[in-house]
């Protein structure tokens, strides 16, 4: 029954990262003056899921931060406190801390506890800032005090008392595990979760060492595991038979290690050892209204809890806390108080109509659901408390229960290599289909009508299949865009500028590998726009613009490419300054350059026009890297700018890296593919445009420029009948800022090709970047344009 928890780590990491991203997004969207209770709940749930998960996996540092975070969030979402801007700041800080901690766990290192402690301190300070509203009597200490206990105790180790229905079987299990069991970190947790699967678990006693160690830090806690003579006493309430329980236990431990006995009366368990050293609770005196049926609800740590209306129950568990607030209830009202496992409590004052209203408050490892407080002002749509007394989960609970399970219904995680394999196979299918179609075109269309219609059907189906398979790799660009609200917010604060970020076309899809690669260049551009583009509020007002600047991030599909634009309504680029700077830096610049050429200068290495170098931008590192990154992705970047109106950076990217937009050209009997994004234009030269230097060094004169002619048949030593450029075609190619005219026989057509590596079974071929399979099944080589240009200049 021992499960290696580490196999689930990856899932936890991914989910936590998603939760953190979601939290951040929601926090940034939150309108402080008019908070949306649903959003607040969503943030809370995200935090809680992380807490549950980290507790389960023993990442106590994360549990600790989320716990404190939750405390404050909990009060906010219940309207006990009004959200303030500084809270959002601290929340964002906390999500950063959590991200760092998560990163550290991913890498297997330890995060700096001081940072976490600092943010916890801020959160606690905020939590205590405001006195609670009158109804929920929450002494500020409540939020803060449980910390030491909650921090040290992983969720799985908590004690909890559950008040149990008398109708079920109750067993007492004394468990004295052997050393081998104790050495397994997850053994006990597994056992507990097994118990909880079949019924309600109450830990009556834990080893003394365990209790003491709980207060110490995580490392020391590991040591306790090897101490002998540890005994747990569990109270298990379940519908399972004694045999079943023994069977279950024998999976986990030696039969000598445990004893199971039937407890006849459920009464015996309602004597919680409430005075455990790290437990505390406090109970407000209940108003002695005769008909009040005060319901104490307790939630148990790893799973669920349920509450029975008990006449006089004050159950408190160790590391959680609970408290009973007296309700200003009328005679028939019921009061429910739920406590949560390791840390926060929540209080629901039910506007219950019936006596002995029952409330179920569930709390679990990795999930929980929270009952929105019935506030006077809250809308009537606020969910009603689900009532449940056992494991039969109410729908709400099921939905919240396991994020993994719920995402499992809508998405699956599949390795990229599997998807790539699928894409390859479908590519094969398309080629086979094309070959079949070609063969079929040679037979009589009337005699073999059904063959033809079948093949036509096959063609449609394969095309659909290819599209669907390709779309697996596609992700919406919102994955990248979603990080920018935060970047802009932080940076705007730092630069004391007022900036609003607008994103357009979030759903535009892009290949996953490109999504990952575009993030950094985009961040550079956005930061640049913010730092250099958007002016300060005073300058903007003076220029007759709104004080708040706008940065627009937009993505759209244009043909086979994705166009991403970063535009700002700032001052625009300063032509004179760029030119003078470029000349100063010894760059190739002159007054006669067109605006576009001038703008492109900022992509030159070592170029920066910022008068003051800030820590945001201005060191001149970046823009050239941006350009290079984008070019590496097979894309290009362009700038449009108007003084006083703003600047727009346009990035054009291919949809995917696996597919290339290419121009096929013919040379003799071979077909070559030139990446379309590197082609400037194609032309058929006139004789008078062809120039030579010393009888060789062929050049072509194109609109005032003299471009070297690279004859592909000479470079590749391929026989061809076309040796006069006037008979063939010149393809103007550009790479690394250099242009050349590639002389080929003819243009064949423009098409998308799937890139295949030549090097898998062969070696690198100079001047060829890869290969692709054409529709007829033959192989065409993809030209390596930058190398060709160098080759043409004799530089290789």
């Amino acid at each position, binding site marked *: 029954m021992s499960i290696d928890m580490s196999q689930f780590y990856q899932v936890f990491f991914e989910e936590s990262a998603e939760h953190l991203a979601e939290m951040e997004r929601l926090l940034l969207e939150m309108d402080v003056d008019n908070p949306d209770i649903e959003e607040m709940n969503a943030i809370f749930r995200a935090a809680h899921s992380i807490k549950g998960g980290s507790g389960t996996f023993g990442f106590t540092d994360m549990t600790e931060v989320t716990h404190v975070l939750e405390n404050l969030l909990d009060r906010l979402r219940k309207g006990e406190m009004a959200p303030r801007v500084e809270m959002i700041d601290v929340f964002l800080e906390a999500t950063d801390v959590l991200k760092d901690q998560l990163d550290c766990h991913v890498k297997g290192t330890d995060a700096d506890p001081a940072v976490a402690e600092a943010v916890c301190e801020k959160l606690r300070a905020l939590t205590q800032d405001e006195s609670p509203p009158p109804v929920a009597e929450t002494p500020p200490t409540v939020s803060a005090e449980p910390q030491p206990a909650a921090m040290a105790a992983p969720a799985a180790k908590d004690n909890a008392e559950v008040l149990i229905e008398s109708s079920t079987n109750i067993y007492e299990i004394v468990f004295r595990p052997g050393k081998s069991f104790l050495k397994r970190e997850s053994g006990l947790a597994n056992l507990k979760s097994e118990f909880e699967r079949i019924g309600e678990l109450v830990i009556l006693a834990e080893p003394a060492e365990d209790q003491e160690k709980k207060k110490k830090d995580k490392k020391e806690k590991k040591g306790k595991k090897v101490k002998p003579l540890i005994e747990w006493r569990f109270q298990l309430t379940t519908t399972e038979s004694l045999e079943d329980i023994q069977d279950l236990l024998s999976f986990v431990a030696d039969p000598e290690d445990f004893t199971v006995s039937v407890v006849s009366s459920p009464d015996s368990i309602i004597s919680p050892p409430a005075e455990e050293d790290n437990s505390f609770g406090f109970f407000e005196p209940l108003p002695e209204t005769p008909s009040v049926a005060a319901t104490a609800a307790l939630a148990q740590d790893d799973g669920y809890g349920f509450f029975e209306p008990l006449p006089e129950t004050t159950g408190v568990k160790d590391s959680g806390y609970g408290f009973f607030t007296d309700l200003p209830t009328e005679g028939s009202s019921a009061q429910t108080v739920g406590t949560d496992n390791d840390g926060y409590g929540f209080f629901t004052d039910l506007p219950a109509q019936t006596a002995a209203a029952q409330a179920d408050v569930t709390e679990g490892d990795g999930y929980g659901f929270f009952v929105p407080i019935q506030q006077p002002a809250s809308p009537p749509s606020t969910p009603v408390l689900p009532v449940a007394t056992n494991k039969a989960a109410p729908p709400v609970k099921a939905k919240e229960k396991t994020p993994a399970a719920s995402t499992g219904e809508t998405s699956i995680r599949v390795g990229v290599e599997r998807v790539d394999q699928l894409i390859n196979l479908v590519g094969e299918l398309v080629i086979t289909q094309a070959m079949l179609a070609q063969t079929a075109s040679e037979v009589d269309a009337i005699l073999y009508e059904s063959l033809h219609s079948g093949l036509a059907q096959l063609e449609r189906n394969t095309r659909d299949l290819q599209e669907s398979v390709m779309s697996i790799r596609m992700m919406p660009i919102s994955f990248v865009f979603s990080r920018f609200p935060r970047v802009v917010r932080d940076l705007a604060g730092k630069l004391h500028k007022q900036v609003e970020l607008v994103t357009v076309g979030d759903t535009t899809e892009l290949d996953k590998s490109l999504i990952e690669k575009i993030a950094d260049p985009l961040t550079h551009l956005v930061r640049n726009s913010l730092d250099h583009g958007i002016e300060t509020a005073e300058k903007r007002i003076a220029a007759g613009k709104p004080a708040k600047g706008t940065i627009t991030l937009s993505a759209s599909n244009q043909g086979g490419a994705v166009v991403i634009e970063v535009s700002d309504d700032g001052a625009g680029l300063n032509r004179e300054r760029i030119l003078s700077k470029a000349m100063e830096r010894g760059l190739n610049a002159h007054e006669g350059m067109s605006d576009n050429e001038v703008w492109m200068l900022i992509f030159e290495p070592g170029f920066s026009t910022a008068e003051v170098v800030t820590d945001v931008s201005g060191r001149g590192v970046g823009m050239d890297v941006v350009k290079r990154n984008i070019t590496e992705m097979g894309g290009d970047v362009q700038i449009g700018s108007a003084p006083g109106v703003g600047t727009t950076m346009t990035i054009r990217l291919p949809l995917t890296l696996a597919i290339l937009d290419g121009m096929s050209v013919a040379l003799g009997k071979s077909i070559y593919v030139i990446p379309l994004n590197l082609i400037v234009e194609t032309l058929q030269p006139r004789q008078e445009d062809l120039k030579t230097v010393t009888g060789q060094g062929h050049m072509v004169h194109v609109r005032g420029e003299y471009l070297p002619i690279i004859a592909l048949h000479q470079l590749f030593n391929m026989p061809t009948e076309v040796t006069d450029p006037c008979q063939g075609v010149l393809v103007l190619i550009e790479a690394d800022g250099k242009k050349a005219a590639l002389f080929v026989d003819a243009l064949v057509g423009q098409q998308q090709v799937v890139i295949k590596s030549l090097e898998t079974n*062969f070696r690198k071929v100079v001047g060829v970047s890869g290969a692709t399979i054409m529709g007829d099944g033959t192989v065409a080589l993809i030209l390596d344009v930058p190398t060709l240009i160098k080759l043409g200049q004799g530089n290789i």
Partner: protein
Amino acid sequence: MNASSTETIDQVSNAPVGEYLTFVLGSEEYGIEILKVQEIRGYDAVTKIANTPDFIKGVINLRGTIVPIVDLRVRFNLGKVEYNEFTVVIILNLSGRIVGIVVDGVSDVITLQASQVRAVPDLVSTIDTKYLVGLGTVDDRMLILVNIESLMNSQEMALIDSVSA
């Protein structure tokens, strides 16, 4: 070079026993380890690759994989080099690297016992005798047993980058 020659010596004692695919190049019969052979197919149109030795015919599309094709007849300078419907390409899988070789024809699969294998005498040939692991005798035929993997991975075949060779 040293490493591969010691490897060859080892193989003189060990490798020659086993199943061999035999093929004909001109008038000579060659044998290669059957386990290196992935499939046998006809000769298709190849895509020529610029600036490569003439025995590298180019690359073909083998169900989506780009596979280089070497004409051993050109490489060994044997036989009339013709490409017709009888021209055979043996697709080899050499530790995951897929290469096709063009031969005049495939004969059969032969199991050789150690007693049937003779050492290769020192002689002059177009390929280094270190790639020959032995001479097999079956009735009156002589099989030239080639260590096809080290031959294909050798620098002389120009099939792989010199860095990794």
